Structures are given as structure tokens and as C-alpha cells.
């Protein structure tokens, strides 16, 4: 068994100190935990990555839970998720409190005006990144268009749209 302080510090380091979202964090964890420390065999990575993709919610935290539980059992999985997210969560909370308290300040308001404009671009680019790998699949494109129209026209809730798309995808899986 891996010593607990060493085990938890690896997940805390990757989860809280890596900027750029889930993919860089997963890459960092793979490098540290599998390639360098060899706590798991390299062939486990594909399984753990698939599990993370299949689990609802934040992929990186699901990857942490699956990887850590593979190394140290279910308790390790539960604790590693907290280690990988709590310090960053506290920082995000403090930033929110700060911005809330200073939102009337004209310089902070100017910064947020620019950042919010960039958020619109971020959402658009996220939609593109999701669509890009499946854009040549006719069914996926149809589901994308149906979801877009259903959401814009308020025909169904996001949950209903997602569940219907999952069922449609499962009925006609890619070859």
C-alpha cells in the first residue's frame, strides 16, 4: 500500500495546482501516478479514462476517484477526490466573495466586463470542442441540431434532451 500522505499529496497537487481544466490534470496524473511512480500498470489508463468519461459530472474528479480507488481502495477514492478539489474550491469561494464585495468598484467592473465577454467565447469554443470529434457522424449531428432547436425553443428541459440523446445514441451505436 502507498503511504497515505504521499498518496493524497499526489492527487492534491494535480487537482489544485494544474491550470487549464480537466485534460491537463488527467495528463499530469497519468504522468506522475502511472509513468513515474508506477502505482498502476500503464494498461489501466484506458480503463480509468473510460470510466471517467462514463461518470456524470466533472471528468477529472471521476478520474481521480477511479484511479485512487484502484490504488488504495474505495476509501482512497473518496479521500483523493476531496484532496484534489477542496483547496481549489476554497480559493474559488474566496474569489467569489472578493468579486461580490468589489463588484461596485469601476476597475473590478471593467475587468469583469472583459472576462464575461471572454466567457461567451469560452462557451462557444466548448460547444465546438464537444462537436469536433463527432462532426462527421450523421446521427451525432442530428442529435446536436435537435438539442439546439429543442433548447432554443424551450421544447424540453436539458435533462430530458440529454437522456433522449443518450438513448438514441445507444439504440444506434457507431460502427
Amino acid at each position, binding site marked *: 500500500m502507498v503511504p497515505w500522505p504521499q498518496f493524497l499529496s499526489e492527487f492534491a497537487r494535480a*487537482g*489544485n495546482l494544474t*491550470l487549464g*481544466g*480537466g485534460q491537463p490534470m488527467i495528463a499530469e496524473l497519468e504522468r506522475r501516478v502511472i509513468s513515474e511512480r508506477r502505482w498502476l500498470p500503464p494498461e489501466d489508463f484506458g480503463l480509468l479514462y*473510460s*470510466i471517467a468519461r*462514463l*461518470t*456524470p*459530472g*466533472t*471528468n*477529472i*474528479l*471521476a478520474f*481521480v*476517484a*477511479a484511479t485512487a480507488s484502484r490504488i488504495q481502495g*474505495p476509501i482512497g*477514492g473518496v479521500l483523493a*477526490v476531496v484532496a484534489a*478539489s*477542496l483547496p481549489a*474550491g476554497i*480559493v474559488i*469561494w474566496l*474569489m*467569489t*466573495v472578493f468579486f461580490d464585495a468589489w463588484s461596485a468598484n*469601476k476597475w473590478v467592473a471593467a*475587468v469583469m*466586463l*472583459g*472576462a*464575461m*465577454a*471572454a*466567457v*461567451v*467565447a469560452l*462557451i*462557444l469554443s*466548448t460547444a465546438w470542442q*464537444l462537436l469536433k470529434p463527432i462532426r462527421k457522424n450523421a446521427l451525432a449531428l442530428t442529435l*446536436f441540431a*435537435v*438539442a439546439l432547436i429543442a*433548447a*432554443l425553443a424551450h421544447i424540453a428541459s*436539458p435533462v430530458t434532451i*440529454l437522456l*433522449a*440523446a443518450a*438513448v438514441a*445514441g*445507444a439504440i444506434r*451505436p*457507431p*460502427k
Partner: protein
Amino acid sequence: MSVLTLYLLLLKATLTSFSGGTSLPSVRQDLVVHRHAITDAQLSTAVAISRMGPGPNGAFVICIGQYIAGPAGAAAGYLAMITPAWLAILLLRLLQGHTSHPRWRGAIQGLTAAAAGLMLANSWPIAQTAITSWLPAVLSALALAAFLSRKIETVWVLASAGLLAMLYSLLHA
């Protein structure tokens, strides 16, 4: 709104997303459109703050929690963010050897396509709030080019857009 209700609404959003940011449509539907607990401006501020800080992309639910119910709400948001991850421990035991099944891959592909459609649909009302003059329009276009190039980290794009807006405000004060 009670903290438990807030937790359950945010949990519903995180449980029905398949990456951190894609819980945004559900959060918007429940908390902006139906309950009017936050505004579109607060939603986009929350996304901006979470993407400028460390940690996973889905951390904007912590900011949402703080806006609605203070520190207890932030804690509810944090718990809603991490709860689904623990399902991975169960899934690992259940699905070993089955994750490459075509129907699973098909379901994931369907979810991904629908999530892209939902994200695009939700960008419209947020854009109406955030892009109110030519300056944010230009900044948004520049940021989109930067994000699509994938060469600059998100945090730097957001920070640069913020600093450029502040600089413009400074020059025209």
C-alpha cells in the same frame, strides 16, 4: 431556497452533465429561468471566476452556491460538484471489461452531441447580457480565436480580456 434544495438542484445539474462546464444549461434552466435565484450576469461571472482560479471547470457551482446562500450555499455547490465523482468508484467495479461496448460508446456520443447543442443554445442569452457594446464584442471575438487556437491557456485569455477592458476604461476615464 433552502441549502438542501440548492444542493439537490446543483446535483441534478452535475449528474446530468458529462464534463464540468456542461452542467451550465441545467443550472441556467433551474436557477435563472425558473426560480430567478441568480441572473445571467451572475452566471457568466461565476463561470469567469471559476475559470480564472485553480481546480476543475465545474467549480462554477461553488460561486453559484455563494451567490444564492452564502458560505453554506458554496459548501452545497462544492458537494454537488464532487458527489458524482464518487460514482466512478462503483462504475469501476461494475464496468470493468465493458466500457468499450458499442452501446455505451453510442450513448456517450449521443450525450456529447446533445451537450454541444445545449451549450450553443445557452450561449445566446448569456451573450445578450455580456455583449452590450462594441468593446465586449471585439474582446469576445478575440477570445474565441484564442480558445479555438488551443495555444493559450483559458486563465490567460480571461485575464487578458479583463485587463484589456480595464485598460480601455482607464484610457477613457
